[in-house]
């Protein structure tokens, strides 16, 4: 049982390692605090989008468990309300574990479980830390394992971030097409290996940049598709132990419904739990885009070099003083 010391504003929680004092007003609990002690690595916090995605999964899990009769209505409603608050961006300061952590993401999963449990306890009129009302492991994490929750919320997050990236790439594509039209009649020398070659129009060069970005946009779409296969329902090793068969069949559909994303369950949950080739695939797509952007940036730097001793073919907008010592630069 959790002991509360109101004068010190602390409550004492216990886990299988032992006991630990937790700030009385904290929504996280003992397992989160242990992770903070163990992993003070980057000095940064978990990505807010990852937290929101985890809350969407927890909400879907609670609803699914309720639908199959494994979680009562009172607890379900409280958990769902707590999740909705997190999805809306509340309690972000309660997610304190380092993004780089040992344990395959267990610390993040438990941080989320504890915050949701304590908020749900509060919603039901209890004192934080009274896990008989809502338990982080037995209720919030019911039918789940870190090994299916963490990969799944990571994938959902990647999809959301790729979506935002795609929007900016779309803007870049349009800007480049516009420039290619504007510069359509600007004749200049083309170069191969930095040696004079034959003429080309500046508009054609910008058109080529836009074509490369168009290709990146299409690749980002396939990256999103790659990330849309979740291993939820597989629990610890993909075999689905402790997840009801009905839960297994419903969980991803409910996550899709809640997130509004076209998510599907992985064809082979055991494969999806151990093989992470999808990430190098997506990272490779992002890298290819970065390579295109960097090549274009190199060209822009070269073409705008000067003003008197460089290529001097284009001007970039002047954004800030170039030098602290050289006047006029």
């Amino acid at each position, binding site marked *: 049982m959790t002991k509360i010391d109101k004068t010190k504003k602390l409550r004492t929680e216990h886990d299988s390692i032992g006991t630990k004092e937790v700030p009385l007003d904290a929504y996280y609990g003992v397992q989160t605090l242990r992770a903070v002690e163990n992993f003070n690595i980057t000095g940064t916090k978990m990505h807010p989008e990852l937290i929101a995605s985890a809350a969407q999964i927890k909400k879907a899990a609670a609803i699914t468990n309720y639908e199959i009769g494994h979680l009562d209505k009172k607890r379900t409603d409280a958990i769902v309300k707590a999740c909705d608050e997190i999805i809306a961006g509340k309690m972000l300061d309660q997610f304190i574990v380092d993004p780089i952590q040992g344990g395959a993401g267990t610390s993040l999963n438990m941080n989320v479980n504890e915050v949701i449990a304590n908020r749900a306890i509060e919603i039901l009129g209890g004192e934080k830390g009274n896990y008989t009302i809502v338990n982080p492991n037995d209720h919030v994490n019911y039918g789940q394992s870190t090994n299916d929750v963490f990969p799944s919320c*990571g994938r959902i997050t990647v999809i959301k971030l790729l979506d*935002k990236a795609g929007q900016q790439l779309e803007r870049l594509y349009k800007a480049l097409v516009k420039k290619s039209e504007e510069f359509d009649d600007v004749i*200049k020398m*083309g170069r191969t290996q930095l040696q004079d070659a034959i*003429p080309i129009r500046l508009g054609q060069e910008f058109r080529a940049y836009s074509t490369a970005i168009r290709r990146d946009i299409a690749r980002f779409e396939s990256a999103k598709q790659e990330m849309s296969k979740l291993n939820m329902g597989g629990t610890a090793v993909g075999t689905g132990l402790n997840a009801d068969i009905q839960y297994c069949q419903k969980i991803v559909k409910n996550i899709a419904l809640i997130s509004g994303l076209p998510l599907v369950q992985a064809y082979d949950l055991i494969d999806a739990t151990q093989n992470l080739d999808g990430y190098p695939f997506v990272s490779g797509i992002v890298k290819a*885009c*970065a390579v295109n952007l960097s090549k274009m*940036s190199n060209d822009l730097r070269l073409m705008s070099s000067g003003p008197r001793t460089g290529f001097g073919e284009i001007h*970039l907008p002047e954004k800030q003083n170039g030098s602290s010592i050289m006047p006029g630069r």
Partner: protein
Amino acid sequence: VNPVIPEVVNQVAFNIIGNDMTITMAAEAGQLELNAFEPIIFNNLFQSIETLTNAVRTLVDNCITGITANVEYCRNMVENSVGIITAICPFVGYEKAAIVAKEAIKTGASIRDLILRDGLLTKEQLDVILNPYSMTEPGISGRPLFMKLPAIQNKV
């Protein structure tokens, strides 16, 4: 004034390329039923995608949209280049073209002036051949003129 926006895009790209190596190594390191290294995969992949997004945003807003061309300078570079001899080559033949090109490189004279001096083509003909559009599209630049001219050695 420095090309600060392309410079920041370059650096974001370098970091993404590094992250890709980390992600690849972490993804490779799975054992049996689980790969325990998703925390760093996510951390770095999120960073890659998000920094790329922000880099592209500033590239559009603070660079691409405001780029202007040094039109006259670019045109002069073409006029004074030796590279345009490639467009003239089908009309005068490779051998003569090569002699003109060599002289241009050696003396700094313009291809146009040398072609006119040697009476190889007229000013009007050169204007047609060296048209910016036809010179930068597939085929022989000034093809209608090419078809009308008699007996050029390379003509097919």
